């Protein structure tokens, strides 16, 4: 953007039927790749805008949110929780997965904070279900995703990934993770206990190695 009055003309082509925009230049290098990626994003956004409910022709302001999707996500999470209580862990995980799909396909212009709220709970619950099934890698990844969506006030997810890493024997990693969790959560009781546990194990390991 060197000049505000000019622009670089790009050879673009519009498909008369689908209205999809594509680049007409045939050369292949990094700049055309970037252009292609951008055009793909543009076409996706265009389709999303096209699918808007009639009174809107441009994305409405982020708030207020259409309550339909939030209700669906909540319902799916509650179904998952019900299955979990009945100890049907893989069914519960399935419900959580559906909920996640629902939450993550929310139109891009709706509040990202809301997405974070919904997604962190679902990931965290799915992690718990996976833990009950003994699927440690899945649970660890889900708990990490939950923490990514919400770092503070999410002690459960911090704890769950820590537990999974311990179960998988990645003790050093677990220790690092839990320490980081404690930075975010303050002196959270369960996390602190988990840290002590890891330290104990590391100590044991060291003693064994020295022996």
């Amino acid at each position, binding site marked *: 953007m060197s000049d505000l009055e000019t622009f670089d003309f790009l050879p673009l082509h519009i498909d008369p039927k689908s209205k999809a925009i594509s680049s007409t230049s045939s050369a292949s290098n990094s700049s055309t790749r*970037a252009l292609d990626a951008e055009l793909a994003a543009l076409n996706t956004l265009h389709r999303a805008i096209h699918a808007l409910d009639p009174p809107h022709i441009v994305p409405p302001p982020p708030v207020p949110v259409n309550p339909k999707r939030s209700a669906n996500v909540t319902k799916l999470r509650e179904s998952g929780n019900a299955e979990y209580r009945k100890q049907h862990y893989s069914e519960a995980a399935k419900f959580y997965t559906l909920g996640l799909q629902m939450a993550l396909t929310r139109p891009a212009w*709706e509040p990202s*904070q809301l997405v974070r709220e919904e997604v962190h709970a679902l990931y965290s619950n799915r992690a718990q279900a996976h833990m009950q099934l003994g699927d440690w890698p899945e649970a660890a990844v889900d708990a990490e995703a939950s923490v990514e969506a919400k770092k503070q006030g999410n002690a459960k997810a911090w704890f769950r990934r820590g537990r999974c890493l311990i*179960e998988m*024997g990645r003790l050093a990693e677990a220790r690092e993770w839990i320490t980081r969790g404690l930075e975010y959560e303050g002196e959270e009781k369960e996390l602190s206990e988990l840290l002590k546990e890891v330290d*104990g194990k590391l100590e*044991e390991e060291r003693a064994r190695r020295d022996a």
Partner: protein
Amino acid sequence: MFDINWGGLLLPLAYLVVLVGTFMTFSRVYRKRKAIESANLAPWFGPHLQRNVYLSLLHMEPEEGSDKAPKVPETVIRAALLRRAVEDIRRIIQIRTAKTACSSLLQRGSVGDDLWQRFLRAEKEMEEELRDVVMEANALLPGWGQIIFQSANEIAANKVLRDRLEEIEVQLEHDKEWWDKRRGDVKTDPTPKDQQQPADDEASEKGLAKAGSEDEPVLVETADTPSAAATPAATPPATPQGGSKKKKGRK
């Protein structure tokens, strides 16, 4: 009375003329050089791809075989403008985060003045760019200028979140493979402990963890493969047994 001796003043006057002349030439040359330099400063940001796409769509050229430029529907134009706004948001965030760092570096003299010049210019350009986008938005649809950046802001934030989540999710394949291999190793490794504790730790996570922390299986492991056990990651394969056992117990 005041009889000025022009002849005697000639020398000092000539001196002054030369002095002022030198200063002026110097300052002119200096300023010109400075102007060229700042005109040639590399822009802070690369080319604004989204802006180019948007403007190219507005100025579509007729394709071969037809003399009319293809008509681009309004919806596409709006989407392109929104994409442009999203990119602007990304750049604004970059500028804001860079500003404090940049100014403190400048004060300490860690970076040159030209970097700061480039920065200021980028800031000014972004202001213009924002104004332009708001104007375009209002032209496309009255009142859209007020909300386009709100929408763009959420789109940008959502993109960041989704990218991060995707990054995390791709680890799963790798982790799972590693874990399956690891567990396989443990299963083929017949330890006495294996028969000793059948489905007795149905109990809880805590119970499991304790089972894992018992020394015995690990000691066996150490005896089998001392070199592997020496590395920290290879030590607790006892735990996996507990994990897989639990799964069987549940079924």
